[in-house]
């Protein structure tokens, strides 16, 4: 038996018949010290065979909790208090654990939100797959391995035989997500729940995974519950949509109807917040900003290079080098938003870290009057002028400090103001970023992702810096929060005249906020220019490919068929005696710089 079997039997069918999964009146509560608090209330939906149901809604609206309730995997202190979850005729909520176990993986499978951490790091991919298979089908080891191999082939992982014996950390995020999908689909479940399967991935990888899910659904007839906050993904994938807010179902309907004619105000707001490529008029920049080219640069990078030595030989000498950033030059002008885009690992964050003095670098950074020639030049005074908002707000805040103290900390360090003055400053900053002053005494984990990001921004603003480096500051946020944060950034720029270095892999977001854009690949810039130049007239094939990969939040949009990108991103790790080729940029008019084609990794 193989996964391709249903394809041959012609199982690619339209959604029809009785629902495979139906949820009715589901309520879930968490037991807290102060009694039980509802997380999800009265959710109902049904899922038919071969159908894709998208659950959309902002962060914390109960999407994950709902799916966990279906799987019977709720956290210890959380319980389903009412309703039914029927798989065929069985009510999963009332099933004893042993019978539930037999159903899990076999008839209902789930792909979790975090591909990076959802695989056991100490077991080979093959073992984890075979184990899932053997848990439900009494197969000998060898047969299970063969089935696992089929599963990996089915998700079109490159070199499947080799992957079987590799460990998760040896795979990229996209590959791991495919392994998760293979694992979930290996037993051909009736229902597959995918919780934000692509949020953490690059646009290009996201593209591949979405394509793959669609194909698999078509081939196996598995019904899919897709949880996502990305309306683009919803538009591309879903047959029907459930919109949730605060643990309640707001609206349900076919995807086309929801997008075309949302009935609830919340749904409308949600859709309105979605950034769309190419919807911002190219002219809006010169209209409301000062003539950009004339503004003095706040930050100038000249031939910035960051390399990490790795590997150790016999005498402890490094053998290899990571060329994270290779000769990058650009400048950021006052009150400008300069965006860096590119796939994971291309060196975006490293540039941010170099500016913040967190990694040793070569080349020059001129920052608000300070001339930095190396990490050692980044003094406290420099840091006052350049602040960084980290990629992951949850990780960038010390979990053991109250947010009020965290925001006040830069002031303390730089010796600004008295205690009371600082308190006042922090309160006003909180108001600025849209948080209430009553929340000052909370700990970071007591905030939602978006709120945490706002805390980080407030912290960065505390010193009134000239430049704020925002590293993927909105990628992990759901659209509504994302929109709010972006609006906030724009507002701050208008009020305070700060410049932003905006780092993101989300092209739509960049399109909606940036004044100028640079596209990076393997540590070097491939194309750079104004937003209109890069997005309106992409010259480099790689730029074009990135733009095309962005999901379009419009169910009617028809994507031109494309070859799947089976390639992996080439590695910036090279032997010490083998430096990469430096790309030269050519001006194609009006400061629009483009490199010669061809990746920088290959020697000419």
């Amino acid at each position, binding site marked *: 038996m193989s996964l391709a079997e249903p394809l041959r039997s012609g199982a690619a069918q339209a959604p029809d018949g009785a629902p495979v999964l139906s949820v009715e009146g589901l309520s879930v509560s968490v037991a807290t010290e102060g009694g039980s608090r509802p997380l999800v209330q009265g959710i109902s939906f049904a899922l038919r065979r071969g159908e894709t149901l998208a659950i959309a809604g902002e962060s914390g*609206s109960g999407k994950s909790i709902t799916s966990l309730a279906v799987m019977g995997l709720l956290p210890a202190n959380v319980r389903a208090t009412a309703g039914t979850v029927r798989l065929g005729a069985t009510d999963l909520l009332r099933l004893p654990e042993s019978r539930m176990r037999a159903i899990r993986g076999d008839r209902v499978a789930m792909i979790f939100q975090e591909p990076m951490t959802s695989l056991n790091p100490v077991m080979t991919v093959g073992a984890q797959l075979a184990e899932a298979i053997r848990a439900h089908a009494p197969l000998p080891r060898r047969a299970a391995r063969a089935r696992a191999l089929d599963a990996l082939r089915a998700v079109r992982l490159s070199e499947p035989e080799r992957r079987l014996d590799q460990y998760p950390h040896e795979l990229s995020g996209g590959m791991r997500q495919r392994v998760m999908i293979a694992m979930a689909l290996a037993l051909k479940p009736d229902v597959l729940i995918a919780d934000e399967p692509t949020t953490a991935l690059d646009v290009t990888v996201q593209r591949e995974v979405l394509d793959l899910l669609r194909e698999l659904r078509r081939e196996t007839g598995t019904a899919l519950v897709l949880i996502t906050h990305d309306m683009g993904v919803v538009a591309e994938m879903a047959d029907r949509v459930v919109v949730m807010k605060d643990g309640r179902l707001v609206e349900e309907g076919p995807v086309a109807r929801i997008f075309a004619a949302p009935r609830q105000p919340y749904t409308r707001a949600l859709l309105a917040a979605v950034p769309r490529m190419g919807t911002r008029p190219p002219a809006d920049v010169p209209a409301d900003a000062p003539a950009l080219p004339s503004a003095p640069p706040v930050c100038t990078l000249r031939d910035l290079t960051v390399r990490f030595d790795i590997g150790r030989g016999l005498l402890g000498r490094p053998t290899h080098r990571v060329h994270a950033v290779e000769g990058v030059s650009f400048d950021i002008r006052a009150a400008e938003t300069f965006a860096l885009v590119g796939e994971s690992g291309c060196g975006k964050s490293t540039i941010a870290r170099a500016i913040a003095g967190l990694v040793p670098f070569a080349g020059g950074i001129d920052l608000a009057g300070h001339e930095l020639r190396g990490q050692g030049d980044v003094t406290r005074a420099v840091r006052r002028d350049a602040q960084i908002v980290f*990629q992951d707000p949850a990780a*960038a*805040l010390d*979990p*053991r400090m109250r947010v009020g103290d965290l925001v006040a900390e830069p002031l303390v*360090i730089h010796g600004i103001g008295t205690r009371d003055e600082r308190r006042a400053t922090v309160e006003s900053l909180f108001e600025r970023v849209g948080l209430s002053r009553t929340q000052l005494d909370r*700990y970071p984990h007591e905030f939602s992702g978006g709120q945490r990001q706002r805390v980080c921004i407030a912290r960065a603003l505390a010193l009134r810096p000239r430049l704020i480096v925002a590293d993927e500051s909105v990628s992990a946020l759901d659209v509504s929060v994302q929109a709010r944060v972006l609006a906030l950034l724009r507002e701050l720029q208008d009020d305070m005249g700060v410049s932003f270095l905006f780092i993101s892999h989300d092209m739509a977001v960049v399109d909606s906020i940036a004044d100028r854009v640079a596209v990076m690949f393997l540590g070097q810039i491939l194309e750079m220019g104004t937003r209109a130049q890069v997005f309106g007239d992409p010259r480099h094939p790689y730029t074009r490919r990135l733009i095309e990969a962005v999901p379009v939040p419009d169910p009617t949009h028809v994507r031109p068929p494309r070859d799947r990108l089976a390639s992996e991103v080439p590695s910036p790790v090279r032997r010490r005696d083998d430096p990469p080729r430096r790309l030269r940029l050519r001006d194609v008019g009006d400061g629009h710089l483009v490199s010669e084609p061809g990746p920088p990794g290959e020697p000419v």
Partner: protein
Amino acid sequence: MSDAVLPEPRRRTALGRLARRPLALLGLLVIVVTVAAAVAAPWIAPFGRDEQLFEGLTLEGAPMPPGGMFPLGTDLLGRDLLTRILWGARTSLVIGVAANGMALLIGTLVGVTAGYFRGWIGSLLMRFTDLMMAFPALLLAICLAAIFTPSLWIVALVIALVNWVQVARVLYTETTSLAERDFIAAERAIGAGHGRILFRHVLPHLVPTIIVWGTLGISTTVLLEATLSFLGIGVQPPEPSWGNIIFENQTYFQAAPWLVAFPGAAILLLALAFNLVGDALRDVLDPTQKGRG
């Protein structure tokens, strides 16, 4: 979570939160009572510290079992065991708390410094730690004590000097991974100095480990002190310590079980009490890990 405004829970002070945990309170009580007993030993002990009582021995020279005049019995010299344990609390607190604390302190300092700064300081410190680890602690203790004149504080120092190594190793590993975390980079990015990062941001995260080692270390150091005393390095008789009382009488555990059981129980109780308080403290200090171990 949306911005749905939940009523702000009232913040309790750390002490207030501690007070809501009955077990922690119990632990605190034990510690307070032990300290009080140690301080008040001269006044509350029924007999003199070293008083070898005629009634304390049978005619054949056997110690008296608990009961009557001697609530916990007497030792092999006819001294009241309760008195000895009360006085012994002084020594044992110094060893179990001060010496052990000193070891923790040194270990933390070395491990954290090495783990945070890496580089040559880190290598140097860790090589030194490896050297110390490869060195038999007992021998070191003997030699150190032979060089200085033995006294309680020298013993405490010696114990601290041999016991910090493991702590340093464990904390080193933990600190290295902690130092890689984003929020430490974030602190640096806002201009925080090393001192601030170490004390305000790294150390609090090491508290759980420090507590495990610290509380388990109480028993081991108290017993180690007895070994050292036996070798002539620790406190000298007739000064009692819980470890010594056990050590001197351990062969009599069948003939006179109380001589081992009571001081043993005292050590156990003290260690448990510190553990309970430590656990609570950790939960209080770590808002994200309520009730986690």
